[in-house]
């Protein structure tokens, strides 16, 4: 086969999982896929501009819908690669376990002048899910003007890790990568739309291995890698 594998455009939050999956795939004797990580919005716009890539892993259904509407993906190839959970983190310290339920007093937990770190709630997927969850729990009005809005989940995580924000709202997968934070609560799955990473083959893709690699990711072996990193199974409870 060709010396380079298919080109995969993937949301930055999928980086670790996809790198490991690509290694595993290469270990099976395939050419290693070429992975490019950036914000989903940037990747989607590159696809719109005619980028020569094979597979897109989005952090967000909206962008995938947008590309589907333009006929830029192979509709039949679209599927969910993984799911994630939304958690509340705090700087590492004595263990805390909050029950995130309707009426939770987040403002009280933030103290007099603390801020809640969150990814941009109007645009970045993690922020949008977070806003939805906080709204569902009735906490949004308390914290709407107490946010520290970062450009990505990583930015929000950094603010908590540095102790600049007493609380932060990130994905479970992000929380476990950062030893300086602890998870203090998990948002109920019902409080926000499911956090899903859709994947699809691009209409323009030419590399013969593209579909096979996508299948590999969706197959038990690929899924196992993602599960180890804290993602939830694509299909399931």
């Amino acid at each position, binding site marked *: 086969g060709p010396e380079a594998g298919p080109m995969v455009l993937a949301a930055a939050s999928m980086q670790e999982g996809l790198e490991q999956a690509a290694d595993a795939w290469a270990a099976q004797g395939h050419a290693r896929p070429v992975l490019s990580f950036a*914000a989903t*919005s940037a990747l*989607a716009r590159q696809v719109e501009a005619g980028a020569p890539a094979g597979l897109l892993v989005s952090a967000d259904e*909206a*962008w995938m*819908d*947008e590309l589907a509407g333009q006929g830029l993906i192979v509709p039949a190839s679209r599927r969910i690669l993984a799911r994630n959970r939304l958690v509340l983190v705090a700087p590492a310290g004595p263990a805390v376990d909050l029950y995130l339920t309707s009426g939770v007093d987040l403002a009280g937990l933030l103290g007099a002048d603390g*801020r809640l*770190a969150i990814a*941009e709630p*109007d*645009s*970045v997927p993690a922020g949008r899910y977070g806003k939805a969850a906080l709204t569902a729990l009735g906490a949004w009005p308390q914290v709407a003007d107490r*946010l*520290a*809005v*970062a*450009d990505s989940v990583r*930015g929000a995580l*950094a*603010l908590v890790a*540095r*102790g*600049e924000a007493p609380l932060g709202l990130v994905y479970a997968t992000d929380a476990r990568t950062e030893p300086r934070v602890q998870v203090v609560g998990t948002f109920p799955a019902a409080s926000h739309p499911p956090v899903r990473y859709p994947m699809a083959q691009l209409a323009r893709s030419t590399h013969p291995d593209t579909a096979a690699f996508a299948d590999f990711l969706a197959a038990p072996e690929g899924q196992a890698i993602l599960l180890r990193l804290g993602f939830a199974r694509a299909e399931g409870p």
Partner: protein
Amino acid sequence: MSPAEWAVVALSLKVSLLAIALTLPLAFALAWVLARTRLPGRVLLDALVHLPLVLPPVVTGWLLLLAFGRNGPVGGWLEATFGISVMFRWTGAALAAGIMALPLMVRAIRLSLEAVDRRLEGVARTLGARPWWVFTTITLPLCLPGVLAATVLGLARSLGEFGATITFVSNIPGETRTLPLAIYTALQVPGGEQAVTRLALVSVALSLAALLASEWLTRRQRGRGSDGL
């Protein structure tokens, strides 16, 4: 443009102007040291000044967070001593914008400073001017083109500053959400192009105004020149 968008413009101007007001004297001092002194560590200082240019903006923002965060050495000291913090504040946004503009400003001023004919300063002293007065009346006006260029460059750079700002002081409406942050937000969502275009045009108009002002000032200072070929 919505009222919220106008507020973003006003905030951007406030942040940029504070950034330049703070950075200009510092940039001048650094340019002076680099152009006029033989300080042993000059090249290292020069490299340090260039850092915000070379590093990706988020790294600069990250370094600012380390230094000026509540738990950082400078931030902790500021908080303990004066009870102030720039974290999540528009002043922090100005700090980030100023730091990013610094290398451009130092360069422009330094170029002009090095072009000043120092013999003119000597004559001024024989006429009774102390060094500080020579600086004010001779050196500074003679490198005004550089200072103006620095101001325009710095203002433009501040208006466009994004990565360091969002990393350092986050993106808080009314406090740190400047034009680029608003534009970035709009760019993240499908169909946000209209808002992006609108806000980008405002940015362009602002810097065009700054350019026009500086051109006018330069021309005025230069006065009527030669009528030669």
